[in-house]
């Protein structure tokens, strides 16, 4: 009997210890989240306020309250471009943040070695009620691996315009906006005739050709389609054979030669300020700038969607946009389920409605209407929201990195006449083919 006593006692002690550990306070869990400082869940003007007043800080507090023992560390990434390299480097070293806010499309496809596939973790309800999943599926394929969540807000491209200037030029774009490229060019001519710069844009200040990326890409994809552009960037077809793209580039050049763009667009960096000060008629924009522009221009601010390149083409009444931002989970995270729970929480109906109290963006959920948001039917944001389910996904995010480099950096040379459209597309072809 004695020979069983000691093992029995040891067993009891072991079980009691395990029971105490199990019943004791839960171990604290900390999730680190990288968030872009603009164009994401942090609005352009939010950073002027104390951090605890930001929407995202308040959302994290709500999540922490609903999940005792969980704390979230917010790390703001001021440089969105650098955030991708930083994430990649951190992922390689095994210390990437649990959740990172990166751009959708090729930027995340290019680093899937350090991103956790989410196919088995995303709730079915999210797949059903959130739009834009194609932007985070590897290769944009309907069955591609899910590399992240579309961020909870939608960026839609459009043109902001100054109603007073347009009226002075004898037009009313609210009642009769230009519907074709010919009407658009004609309208720009009328604006120039009254001595105002028709389009203000900084086409190289941030090494990105905004006019092409936000407006003219729509005309490109109208003619070539996103699938066609993907085939070109993968080297299966030639950019040089893309007559639609060449026509768009020639139009881009013609806008410069006719004096419709500001003359120093290749070096300027104050177009938005100039636009807010009434120095130009149009500024190409995305939704995150809308609130600031409305504050500055009040009822004079109008919203113009890109006219059609050719009404006979299949794609009509759309624009460039979609969830340009995503949330990804690092492969090295210790808490994959919790990380997905947090992202799902940020995308939930309740949180999207909360976010809209601070920032105004079209939303990516199908179960929220403009009326839910309290937007007037004729408001600028309501007009943009109409496009939140019929957008055409970002063309520049389709381009593979080396092609995107050429596109972003050298396109402005085409406008200013330092490079021919043919030389430009040849350079893109030279860099195509690497996935």
């Amino acid at each position: 009997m004695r020979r069983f006593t000691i093992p029995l006692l040891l067993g009891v002690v072991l079980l009691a210890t395990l029971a105490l550990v199990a019943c004791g306070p839960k171990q604290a869990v900390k999730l680190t989240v990288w968030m872009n400082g603009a164009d994401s869940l942090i609005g352009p003007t939010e950073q002027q306020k104390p951090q605890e007043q930001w929407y995202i800080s308040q959302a994290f507090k709500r999540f922490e309250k609903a999940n005792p023992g969980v704390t979230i560390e917010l790390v703001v990434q001021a440089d969105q471009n650098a955030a991708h390299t930083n994430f990649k480097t951190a992922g390689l070293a095994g210390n990437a943040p649990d959740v990172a806010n990166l751009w959708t499309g090729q930027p995340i496809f290019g680093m899937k070695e350090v991103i956790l596939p989410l196919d088995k973790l995303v709730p079915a309800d999210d797949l059903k009620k959130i739009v834009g999943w194609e932007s985070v599926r590897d290769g944009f394929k309907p069955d591609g691996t899910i590399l992240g969540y579309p961020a909870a807000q939608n960026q839609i491209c459009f043109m902001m315009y100054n109603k007073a200037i347009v009226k002075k030029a004898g037009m009313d774009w609210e009642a009769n906006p230009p519907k074709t490229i010919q009407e658009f060019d004609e309208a720009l001519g009328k604006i120039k005739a009254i001595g105002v710069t028709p389009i203000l844009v900084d086409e190289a200040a941030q090494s990105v050709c905004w006019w092409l990326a936000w407006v003219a890409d729509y005309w490109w994809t109208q003619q070539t389609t996103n699938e066609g552009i993907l085939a070109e960037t993968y080297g299966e077809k030639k950019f040089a054979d893309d007559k639609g793209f060449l026509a768009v580039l020639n139009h881009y050049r013609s806008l410069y030669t006719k004096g419709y763009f500001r003359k120093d667009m290749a070096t300027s960096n104050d177009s938005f300020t100039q636009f807010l000060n009434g120095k130009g008629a149009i500024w190409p924009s995305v939704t995150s700038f809308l609130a600031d522009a409305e504050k500055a221009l009040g009822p004079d601010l109008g919203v113009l969607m890109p006219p059609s390149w050719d009404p006979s083409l299949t794609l009509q009444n759309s624009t460039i946009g979609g969830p340009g931002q995503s949330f990804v989970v690092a492969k090295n995270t210790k808490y994959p389920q919790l990380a997905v729970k947090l992202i799902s929480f940020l995308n939930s109906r309740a949180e999207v409605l909360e976010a809209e109290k601070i920032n105004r963006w079209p939303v990516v959920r199908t179960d929220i209407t403009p009326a839910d948001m309290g937007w007037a039917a004729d408001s600028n944001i309501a007009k943009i929201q109409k496009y939140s389910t019929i957008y055409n996904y970002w063309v520049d995010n389709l381009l593979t990195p080396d092609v995107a480099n050429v596109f972003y950096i050298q396109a402005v040379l085409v406008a200013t006449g330092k490079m021919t459209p043919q030389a430009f597309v040849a350079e893109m072809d030279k860099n195509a083919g690497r996935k």
Partner: protein
Amino acid sequence: MAADSIAGRRSRIKRREILLSLLPIAVILLVFRVYPIALALGRSFTNWDGLFRHDWVGIANYVNFVKSGQFWTVLRNTLILLINVPLQVFIGIVVALLLYEKVAGWRIYRAVVYTPQIISAVIIGFLFKIFFGYEGPFNAVLKAVGLGSMAIEWFGNNFTALGVIVFSIVWFSIGWQAIVILGGLSAIPPSVFEAAIIDGARYWQRAFLIVIPMLVRVIEFAVIASGVWTLTQLFPFLFAMTKGGPGYETSTLDYMIYLKSFGIGFSSDYGTASAIAVMLLVLVLALTVIEMRLANRADDWG
């Protein structure tokens, strides 16, 4: 025999002391210089993307970069920007001579001339960007004095943009050059100048026939240091002023290393970036050797 043994032992101890004394710097050089250079050289033959892709590609990175349109543009820009070296050395010598001669107010001039050196290069870059902006103060002055036709987009084309960058670098570097040359001047015995004055040598004769020949080694150092600096340290100026653009119109070899590694478009082509770094190293070494040989010849003439 015993004496030989003691001498041999002392010699061994001496050798060991020398080796031990050299060890710290040798380790530092190996870890912080030789290893990174060797690593960059090795990676320049791969398609390393910063993650897991690092296949051997031979000299493809070098060939592809040289074949690309960018190579000749950035090489041309890099060489054009070297124009700042003779300019800053020449102006530095003139300023140093004026300070050495203790012209009226020389103490104030010395402080003023050196001031740009204590301002961040990024701030200088932004100041010049604003100053030479299309609607900036410089063009405003040109328009005000009736030279509106000369008010151009200074950063809009390669020639004028590089000109402004050279101007900013020279303005930034004059103080450093003047201090270096002034240090060299201080080492020349005053009796040499006194004798020259007694012999009737004029100011410019003293400057060109006495000072410059006696400063050859100092000028050599100034030229090599500022040449290497121009080839490798211009990043903050370019980033703040032009971001290497429009296109690649103001990009240099060292700026391309950044663009290929961390630039827009998420390409992270570290293999090509390493190849450009190796090319830049070869260029720096070649120019340094040429410059040293010229300086040796000048010293012989002196």
